């Protein structure tokens, strides 16, 4: 392959032992990630994370999950896990990384060579930032009922509709979206996966404030937004299949024990500051949760081993998402309980000798049971597809 995607890798990471690789990643993060951005209580904005991710891009570390020939680090599943673990361990804030996390894998699997050459180099250099336009006001859990319309006008698709809850669309230059290309077909069958440049007059992005006071998701209004027909990914009306290929990955990602583990460290700090760390009653509650996290990690390791062997994940991975996100909520709730009146203060609060953001856990713990397929939907999947219980 003569076309060069991104920068050359310094070495063959997979030839290293896990320990060697972990040490290299850790050293880079600890030496260079800005301390003040560690464990941010909210999603960081591009202007805050830009310097760091441009550094990652320059190093060739922006896409650890992509193959080397496409400019990624080409990490084996085991090495990739280590990379994610170290990222989370050091509390590195995400940017709007749907370009590397989702678009890359989609284009590598379903895209044309032309699409890959057109889009991947910009993703690798952080010249383009991608957001995910699936949800609509009327189509959340029932995503297949989405109503964004597409008509063909010469060699362009003309897209009209509304996307919502689009994470960090205000930072994005592009969107990959699902839209209805065949209104006559049955639900899933008339949907296509399209790529859209947001810098055009048919697109309006409006940030939505959340209950924690942050603007992390947006409404995106599409009013005859245009995209060239070459921006169709996969076949026409087969977008559902393209989008679905990412789901297993998402569930194992949200099922990681890192978030609840971090919740436990905050809880411990609050307990120490409140003088109850040695209280047997508190310890009983704390270690019940610590075991919930420990057993989450055990289950998580089981699923990651499957990924490492290169085998497909079963539908049972849904329970990982449920257990991880609800355990985090229970940890956040005990943090609020332990904090007493300090949980009536928003942001950083002085708690005896410590300064801690008590409510950050509370707010952070709410959305994960909603996004990535709500926990109710995950329970439906488990009941019907894993336990084999009858449908209504």
């Amino acid at each position: 392959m003569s076309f060069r995607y991104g920068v050359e890798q310094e070495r063959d990471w997979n030839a290293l032992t896990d320990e060697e690789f972990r040490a290299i990643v850790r050293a880079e993060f600890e030496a260079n990630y800005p301390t003040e951005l560690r464990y941010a209580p909210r999603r960081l904005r591009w202007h805050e994370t830009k310097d760091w991710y441009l550094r990652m891009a320059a190093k060739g570390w922006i896409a650890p999950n992509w193959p080397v020939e496409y400019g990624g680090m080409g990490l084996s599943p085991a090495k990739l896990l280590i990379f994610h673990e170290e990222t989370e361990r050091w509390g590195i804030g995400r940017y709007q990384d749907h370009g590397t996390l989702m678009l890359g894998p989609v284009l590598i699997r379903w895209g044309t060579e032309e699409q890959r050459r057109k889009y991947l180099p910009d993703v690798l250099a952080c010249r383009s930032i991608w957001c995910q336009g699936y949800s609509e006001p009327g189509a959340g859990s029932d995503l297949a009922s989405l109503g964004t319309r597409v008509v063909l006008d010469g060699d362009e698709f003309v897209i009209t509709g509304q996307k919502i809850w689009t994470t960090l669309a205000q930072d994005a230059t592009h969107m990959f979206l699902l839209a209805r290309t065949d209104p006559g077909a049955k639900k899933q069958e008339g949907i296509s996966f399209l790529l859209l440049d947001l810098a055009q007059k048919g697109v309006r992005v409006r940030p939505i404030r959340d209950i924690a006071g942050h603007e992390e998701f947006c409404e995106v209004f599409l009013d005859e937004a245009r995209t060239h027909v070459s921006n169709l990914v996969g076949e026409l009306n087969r977008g559902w299949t393209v989008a679905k290929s990412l789901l297993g990955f998402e569930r194992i990602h949200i099922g990681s024990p890192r978030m609840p583990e971090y919740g436990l460290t905050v809880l411990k700090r609050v307990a120490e500051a409140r003088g109850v760390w040695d209280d047997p009653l508190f310890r009983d509650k704390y270690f019940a949760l610590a075991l919930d996290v420990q057993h989450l990690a055990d289950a998580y390791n089981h699923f990651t081993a499957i990924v490492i062997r290169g085998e497909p994940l079963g539908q049972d991975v849904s329970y990982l998402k449920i257990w991880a996100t609800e355990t985090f909520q229970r940890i956040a709730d005990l943090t609020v309980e332990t904090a007493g009146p300090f949980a009536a203060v928003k942001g950083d609060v002085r708690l005896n000798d410590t300064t801690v953001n008590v409510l950050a856990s509370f707010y952070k713990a709410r959305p994960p049971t909603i996004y990535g397929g709500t926990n109710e939907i995950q329970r439906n999947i488990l009941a019907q597809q894993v336990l084999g219980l009858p449908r209504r």
Partner: protein
Amino acid sequence: MSAAASTPHVSAEPETLALLRHSVAGLARFDGQRIRAWRDRSPGFDRALWREMASQGWFAIPVPETEGGLALGIEAAAIVAEQLGRACLPEPYVMAGFLGPMLLAQSTNEAARRELLPDVLSGETVLAPAWQSADGGISPSTPGVFARPDADGFVLSGESRFVVPAEADIYLALAHDGDGLLVAAVERRDVRMLRQEPGPDGVSTAWLGFQDLRVPKSRLLMSGEAVAARVQAALDHAVIVQSAELCGLMQRALEMTLDYLRTRRQFGAPIGSFQALQHRAVDLFIQQELARHATGTAVRAAANATDCRVLSRAASSAKARAAHAALLIATQSIQLHGAIGFTDEYDLGLYVNRIVRLAASFGNAAEHRRRFAAASAET
């Protein structure tokens, strides 16, 4: 047995209470735009509305008639608070409209009482009880402020935290003088605002510093042996009234959620038709009802209590349930709404944040369960 109850032992007529409920509901209407506009802004609530509330006589509820009050008792205060909760008002009724006037009316300093009460009842002067220490303990027996005697009064030093409203005109500072407790009226300009701490609902609390602050005898509202029991009883009343406010908040949050379950459609059906969600809604309803009844029982107990331990147990029983139920309803309401429940634009979020705040202040569910256990062990 110690005499404790601090509201006059008058039970208002049922008709009076029904009228009151109606008039509070009429004045205290939910207005999301107004609530959002007042957030994170000084003084965090609307003084014009405060005066209007005063003109309705609400602040006179815990004040005896001989002091120009209505002496309507805690049932009436609970009704006001519940309705204010339903409307999600940021105005600090429980602290400044109930606890403050109640404490002031009980002052043994007649001159101070006569001087201050009329303006408090008219809404001109806003009071804030400053009773909690910086470490956040819920017992008034260990305030963060110390008082040492001085020629014509006392000198106060120390800190008081979680004071609501943050920007009051007069703080009712609870202090320890080595022997017992005292309460002094301190002007805003005389204390140091160490920090205003923002609340999740956009209402901040004051962290006050008292630096060798001289308080003349004329500003001493009460001192001596009886103060500890009197302040504890007043706080217990306030906890019960605050539980009623939480009841109002959780009722509206659950109503909004039930409305949403009826109207939001996914998979070709209202989401409220999915059995999993129906069962969840029923569980929340049960918590709401338990909170309502626990609070009602505590209100009646407070109206009749002559024993301070009975009163404390009743208050803790109500708050333990109300705080637990309200937080559960708040968090589950978000879940049942999906993403829209996490937005600030949708009104549910205002209720969630107000609940988070009230559930944590004046003792949260766990703290009140512990206090209930302690009070139960003694009997």
